[in-house]
């Protein structure tokens, strides 16, 4: 039997036997987009994750270029989407720090930046 055929059969066998398993929420994408530049300060930041989130244990903070926290506190969670409203923070590099708990009970955290200004 050819090597390629063996590899395919092995892979199929693995796929056949996967079972109940749990995952972790990773950041899928965000608005404003990770690392991108926007001309005007956004009114909110929204993050989409690979898993549904638990509101009780999910949070996000946003700081502006001056290092001041400009999010309005408690984020809104809908399915795999996490949003937080922002106060105007002017131009500069915005830092977004998130810590989320997926519905399957695993915590993950991360951060990213985006630019505001011309």
């Amino acid at each position, binding site marked *: 039997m050819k090597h390629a055929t063996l*590899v395919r059969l*092995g*892979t199929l*066998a*693995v*796929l*056949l*036997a*996967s*079972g*109940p*398993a*749990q*995952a*972790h*929420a*990773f950041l899928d994408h965000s608005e404003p987009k990770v690392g991108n530049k926007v001309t005007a300060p956004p009114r909110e930041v929204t993050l989409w994750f*690979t*898993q*549904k989130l*638990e*509101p*009780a*244990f999910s949070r996000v903070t946003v700081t502006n270029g001056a290092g001041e926290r400009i999010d309005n506190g408690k984020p809104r969670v809908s*399915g*795999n989407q996490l949003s937080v409203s922002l106060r105007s923070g002017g131009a500069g590099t915005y830092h977004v720090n998130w810590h989320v*708990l*997926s*519905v*399957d*009970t*695993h*915590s993950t955290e991360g951060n990213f930046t985006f630019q505001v200004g011309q």
Partner: protein
Amino acid sequence: MDWFGVEIDGPIVVVRTIHFAATATMAGALMFRAVVAEPSLRSAEQVDLIVDRRIRALVWICVALSIASGVAWLLLQTSAMSGETYSQALMSGALVIVLNETQFGLVMKIRLVFVLVLAVCLAYDRFPPVRWLGLGSSLCLTVAIAWTGHAGSTPYQLGYLHLTADALHLLAASAWTGGLVSLVLLLAATASHQVETRAALELDAVRRFSSLGIVSVATLVGSGIVNGWILVGSFRGLGATTYGRVLMLKVAIFLIMVSVATVNRFFLAPRLALSGGGDAQRKWAHGLRRNALVEIVLAFLVFAVVGLLGTLHPAAHLVN
């Protein structure tokens, strides 16, 4: 705890393993009683009573293990979610938040109701409707596990497909594992109580279980394809991630189980049918018992691997 380069949350893996094994064995044993033992042993009242008593004792043990491991799982998970120690999580109100504000907590409360209904049904299961209610509760208790795992958190329409596949996977794994344990109990009961129709009883039970086993394996295969497609997603994910490699270990054990079951189905069962009683019949029935025990050990190894897999990042999220 670091094990061969894999970071393992030991207590949660152990508790999940015990919980999955106990729940699956409980539901599978009651399925076995309903579709294998009762129809096969209808003509042998004495053996039927013994097997029924043993299966009920097995289920009671599983109920106790399931409740104890479920409570431990809830406490460990609360500590992990809140980032607090076990005692802090109890005192700070984190446990109440988990129970009232998370899907995991809600599902665990619903499952507690099912296990309590099952316990009441077991205590009063002389009546057929109560037995069926107990069986239904045990199946719900098992299926609900899907909502505590990855399938319960998969977003969009894909989540429904994943939940369905996971629920079927859990039911099939339960039918196979719990059925195997119960089959050993049944064969031991017929061996220790000399009844004239022993060979016919054993053969009938083995054939019925074999049919249940074939349906279980087919369901495991179908639902496994869906789960694998969602959680692994690519060939690269199998070898390039810890999740993929641990999953391959699970598949290896699964394939060995299927091989042993195939020997039972196509080698031992036909010989048991042709033995016509006496030493030959005892020999083949003993072979079936021994192989069933091997399968049970392998099944519990699979539960341990599943307990570990649940704490790892699925390959699909890392590779894509």
